[in-house]
Each structure stands twice: as structure tokens, then as C-alpha cells.
């Protein structure tokens, strides 16, 4: 194909042919990233909306269900993520000042922390599977005890008409179906979040490869900045997920 570019001579290797200069290219990719994050907010927003509606419709069931989550693992992961946000910020800084070794080191650290998060998530999910807490035909909350009252939660005592969850204060008969909804949302929301983490990990590996090849410099580092933005966004989603799923209603009684 013929190249009709008036800027063909001596431009930066990272400059795509249809942009005038690196500044325009950078502005463009930044804007795109922000717009993309707006779509992400709407995407998670649908789930958050469903969560808020069911949380307010079935407060008791949700409180019981959230007590079955492992706060220690959740809290641990929250710390891991916050630290990874910091290391990611350091990678961006290192890229901006052009320190290649630091950049690679911080990217690897971030990757390790992200991997840790996913590892913990794996064990958490495994635990839920083993205890029959995965919604579906084999859902089984019966073996679970209400951590507050110690009473077993019975099958079949559900109230199917919505807005009318069990008002029993002792917690001996709890609507199983509503608990199931909690776990549906738990898996949907944390699953979607974990999926974003996996993509983030892939992006980090890609960045590490690029940095090793000396792609980034003080002048050109927007991929690092953009992945950083993405990573922080995913962290922020977790910052909302953690209290909503693990904390609210823990001492509900």
C-alpha cells in the first residue's frame, strides 16, 4: 500500500500513521481509556443495582448469607490489592522517569500481588464448592450454621413471594432461595471482578515483555499509564465489593 504520509520522515517508532504526533496519540488513548472505564462502570452497575435491590428486599437472608463468607480471606485480599495499587503506581512513576529496572521490578511485584489475590480467590471458591454454597441444583445451606445463633438453617422454609422474607429473629428457619440469590450475586460479581484481574495480569505480562525490549522511555510510556489506570479501576471495584458482600450485616441482629 502506498504511504501518503506527510510526517513519514523521522517520526517516533510508536507513532501510528494516522496521528499527527505523539501528543495527539497520547490524548486519544487516554480519552479512550476513560470512556472504556465508563462502560465498565455501567457494566458492573447492572450487578450493583441488582445487589442493592435484593439486599433491601431480603435483608435478613443476605445478612445470614454474608456471614458464611470468609472475612479473613476477603480482608487479606483487600490488603493485597491496595498494595498492588501502590506498586502499580510505582511502575508508572518509574516509566515516567525512565528507570527501566525499577519499572520491570514493580511490574513483576504487581503481577505477583495480583496472582496472590487470584490464588486466595481460588481457595475461597473451592471452599464454597466444598460446602455446597454454589447456587444451582446442589445448593446446600443446611450444613451451615448461623454463626450468631448456632442454629442450623433449614431447607424449604423459603418464602417465595418477594418482599416477605422470614422475620424470624432466632434465625432457625431462613429462606434458602433468598440465600441462594446472595450467592448468585456473590459469584457473578466477584467472578466478573476476578475475570478483570486475569485480564490485568495478562496486560502486566505484556508490559513486562515490552519493557524488557526497551519500548518505554520518558517520552513514550502511555501503555504503562493506561494499564495502571485499568488496574486502579479494578481495585476500586473491589473496594466496593468487599464491604457490600463481606461486611454489611455481619452483626445484624
Amino acid at each position, binding site marked *: *500500500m*502506498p504511504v*501518503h*504520509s*506527510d510526517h513519514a520522515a523521522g517520526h517516533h517508532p510508536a507513532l*501510528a*500513521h*494516522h496521528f*499527527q504526533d505523539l501528543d*495527539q496519540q497520547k*490524548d*486519544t488513548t487516554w*480519552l*479512550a481509556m476513560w*470512556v*472504556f472505564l*465508563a*462502560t*465498565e462502570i*455501567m*457494566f*458492573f*452497575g*447492572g*450487578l450493583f*443495582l*441488582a445487589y442493592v*435491590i*435484593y439486599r433491601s*428486599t*431480603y435483608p435478613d437472608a443476605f445478612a445470614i448469607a454474608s456471614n458464611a463468607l470468609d472475612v479473613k480471606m476477603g480482608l487479606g485480599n483487600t490488603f493485597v490489592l491496595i498494595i498492588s495499587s501502590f506498586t502499580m503506581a510505582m511502575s508508572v512513576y518509574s516509566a515516567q522517569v525512565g528507570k527501566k529496572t525499577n519499572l520491570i521490578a514493580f511490574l513483576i511485584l504487581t503481577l505477583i500481588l495480583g496472582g496472590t489475590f487470584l490464588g486466595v480467590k481460588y481457595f475461597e471458591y473451592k471452599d464454597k464448592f466444598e460446602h455446597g454454597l*454454589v*447456587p*444451582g*441444583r446442589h445448593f446446600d445451606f443446611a450444613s451451615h450454621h448461623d454463626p450468631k445463633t448456632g442454629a442450623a438453617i433449614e431447607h424449604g422454609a*423459603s418464602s*417465595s*413471594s*418477594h418482599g416477605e422474607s422470614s422475620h424470624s429473629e432466632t434465625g432457625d428457619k431462613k*429462606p434458602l*432461595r*433468598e440465600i*441462594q*440469590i446472595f450467592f*448468585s*450475586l456473590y459469584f*457473578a460479581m466477584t467472578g466478573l471482578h476476578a475475570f478483570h484481574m486475569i485480564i490485568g495480569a495478562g496486560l502486566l505480562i505484556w508490559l513486562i515483555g515490552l519493557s524488557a525490549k526497551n519500548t518505554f522511555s520518558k517520552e513514550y510510556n502511555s501503555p504503562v499509564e493506561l494499564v495502571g489506570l485499568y488496574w486502579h479501576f479494578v481495585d476500586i471495584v473491589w473496594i466496593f465489593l468487599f464491604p457490600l458482600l463481606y461486611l454489611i450485616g455481619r452483626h445484624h441482629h
Partner: protein
Amino acid sequence: MSVTTVPQQQEQENYLTAGYSLQSWFLTYDHKRIAWLYLASITAMFFIGGIFAALMRLELMTPASDLFEPDNYNKLFTMHGIVMVFFFIIPAVPAVLGNFLLPLMLGAKDVAFPKLNLLSWYVYIAGATFTIYTIVAGGVDTGWTFYTPYSTSSSQTHVVPVVLGLFITGFSSILTGLNFMVTIHRMRAPGLTWFRLPLMVWSLYATSIIQILGTPVIAVTLMMAGLEKIFKLGIFDPALGGDPVLFQHLFWFYSHPAVYIMIVPGMGVINEVVTCFSRRSIFGYRAIAFANVGFVIFSFVVWGHHMIVAGQSVYSALIFSILSYLVGIFSAIKVFNWTATMYKGSISYDTPMLYVFGFQGLFLIGGLTGLFLSALGFDVHVHDTYFVVAHFHYVMVGGLVMAFMAGIHFWWPKMTGKMYPESIAKFAMILVFSGFNLTFFPQFVLGYLGMPRRYASYTDEFQLLNIMSTAGGSVLGLGFTLGVVYMVWSLFYGKAVNSNPWKATGLEWEKASSPPIVENFHETPIVTEDPYNYANRDFIKDFPQELSKEVNARA
């Protein structure tokens, strides 16, 4: 002459001659070629959807359900709706005309992210593949709205693959919207300020915002529905503790704005065509530009008018009803401004302009009946009758498809360098217009008289009107088929045109050759005047009534 006519060297390479291999088409990053990929795909989908429509109309010729079992009829209207809405109407103007024109109108070499652009076409194809697979595997019967709990619990048909297909297709729409929005912000030529943008660009901008904010919501909704179907989760099924009304809220939060994804770009096309064939600057440029913004805002707050009988409180219904009236204001602004533009203009009746007239008339009927439907009492009366079917076909087919036809005829010479045969095109336009009215006008009456939608059978008294409707459907189908035939014909045998056969304003006409070169412009254009400055063009006086004559003379 102040018109810059780009020198047309015969042997000069353009984007069509820049490569002939399959690879040069299927791995292209050129927005103009991607527009062609979309054009071919949506045309195919349009005819697939059309076949379903034809089968439905055949069934409805007689009162009994004799051609199809009711179950199969359910699948027909479901597949028709899905294919037409998600695979034809939504991508039609943005993905075909938008892709082709946006960079040209902005004076840019390409969209901001050419690879992403190609990716979005592949994503579309992946989504379409799932849908076609479902058709072959036996179809879906939920209606294109997938209302729960029917779709998640009762239906025994292939809900999951379709939902997955639509989930995927949604990303194609999001990616296109994102790409366009960023392109409009960052890729404008020097001097091209916001208020010098062609109104088509404003429309595409508004559409992009809706795509970006709305589509993720439907994606996640369909995801939840799919998961519920597979794992019996109970998010929407009341028997499992869920809430079906929540599904409707989420669904219409997207699908009402989606109506504007369909119609707003069409209105963008109308702006361009109206001014060109009236030889006047558009009346009320800013009002139209801001009306687009109004559409965006209001489209997100009226979804509840689809749920007036779905069990929301009377107060919500009232509020949604009132808000819905407000949306009418923005359509009215546009329709009035187009009419004012034509007033005292020197109008020429070429095919694109005929489609604009078609659009004006049909969209007006569609829009006004939409106001009827926003009235609570009336909606309760005609809810889920053929009145609604007629209404949305007037808006979608009478509105968007007319606009699309106007646009494709208008820019065809730019896209191909060839002129379509004008008199055959006019004939086809008349077929489409009269076929359309014959098909759908009787349906208003049918609905008002009480014929419900989505049934394969009806009582005898409705037969006459149904026969009219089916007859109209055949005329309509004929008109569209003829369109495809002469368009393809003109690719090979059409008369060659110069860079600006309509003598229109706009960078794509005045600064780019027909067809444009690969990088669109030989040098980046600099914009120094407002759009639609027809008054400042010398040729306004001797503008030929029948442009085709001039084209013939040239060839």
C-alpha cells in the same frame, strides 16, 4: 468557481484499487473497507430477517394457524425481531455510513483506533454466528425481549447461545461507539470546531454516548439471564425468589435508549441530504445539535413507558409517561427544522431526497402514534396489539430504514465512484414506500380493533386487513430486492462520477476524490467556514434539477 474539485486522474489509486486479495479486505484497517464489510453483513442479515417476516406474513394470510405450529410461529417472530434489531438496525447507519464517513467528515486519515474498528466487525460476526447457529439448531421462542422467567425457566429452546451471541455483539457496538467518540474528540482537522461539524457527526456522537452507557447494561442483564438459565440461579425467576420486573427494568434501560441508537444516526443522514437537495444552509443548526444531546439525556429516563402494564406503581407510570412526552420535543425540533430548511429552497427530487420525504412522512406517523402510546389509558387499550407493531415499524423501518436508504444512495457515488441508475432507483423507492404503507397501516387498524400480536391465528373478521398487510409485505420485499440488484449492477456498469456529483458541501465531497484514496486526503484539510454554506457556492444558481442528466453528459 469556488468549488474545489479534486483532480480525478484516471489511473490514480484509491482505497478500492489498493489491493484485491481477500486478505486486503478481511485484515484491512481502513475504515472505508470496514464499512463495506459491515454493509455486506448487515444486508445479509436484513434478508435473513426479511425471510422470517415473509413467512410470518404468509401464515397471517389466513385466520387459522395452518402453515406453522404456534410454537414455530413464536420462533419466527423471535428470530425476526432479534436479527432485525440487533444485527441490522442498530449497526446499519453507524457501522456502515458512520465508518465510511466519520473520518472523511472530520478531515482525518482514519478513526482513532483502526485495529479496534476491525475487531468490532469480527466481534459482530462472532455474535451473528451464534445467532445463525441457533436458527439452524432450532430457534428461540422467547421474543426478542427475553422476558424472564419464561426465558430462564420455561422456554425449552436455545436461549443460552442466542443470549451469548447478543452479549458478544454488544461489545461490537460498544467498541464502535468508543472509537467514534474518541475520534470525534481528538481527530478533527484544524479549524473544525464543534459548531462547524456536520450534523451527521453530532448524531454519531450522541449515538456513541448511548452505545457506551447503555450497551453494557444489557450485556450484564443478558449475562445474568444466561447464568440463571444454566445454573438455575434465581435472580429473575420469582419461583426462585428473584424478580422478573428487575429484568424488565434493566432490559428497557438499554432498549429504550437503543431506539435512539437506531433513529438518531438516521436523523443525521437526513440533515445532510436535506440541505444538499434544498441548496440551503440547515435551519437551526445549534438547535438540532443540542436536540441530539437532549435525546441522549431523555432516552435514559423514559424506559418505564415499556412497563406501564408490568406492575410498577401508578406514580412511576405517570412520571414515565410525562417524561416520554418530553422526548417528542426533540424529534419535533428536528422535523420542524428540516421542513424550514426545505421551505423556499430549490429542491431537486433525486432518489436520496425522495427517501427523505418518505422518512419525514413515516417518521411523523410513527412518532405521533408514539405519543398516543405514552398516554396511559390508550396504552393499556392497545398494549401488545398490532397497534404497537405498526408503531415501531413506522419508526424503525419508516424512519431508520428510509434514512439508511437515503444515505446509501447519497454517498454511493462517493463510496464507489459510480452512479446508481436514477430512474430505476426512483421506481424502487416508490415500491418501498407504497409497500411499506400497505403493510403497516392496516396494522394500526388491526391493533385498534384488538388483534393481539404474537399469535399465529386470529378471528375471521381480521382477515381482510391481514391480506392487505401481506400483499404490502411482498411489494416491500420486491422494492428492497430491486435496490440490492441495481446497486450491485452499478458497481460494474454504473456511470463514473467526479468527486462531487451532487455539488454538496462537506470535506468528504469537496476535499476527497470519489472513491477516496487510502489515506482519505492528499493533505490534511483546513476548515475555514461553517457547514452547509450553500449560499457561498457559485453553482447554487445553475444547480441542475436532474443531476443524473449531468452525470450522463459527463460520461
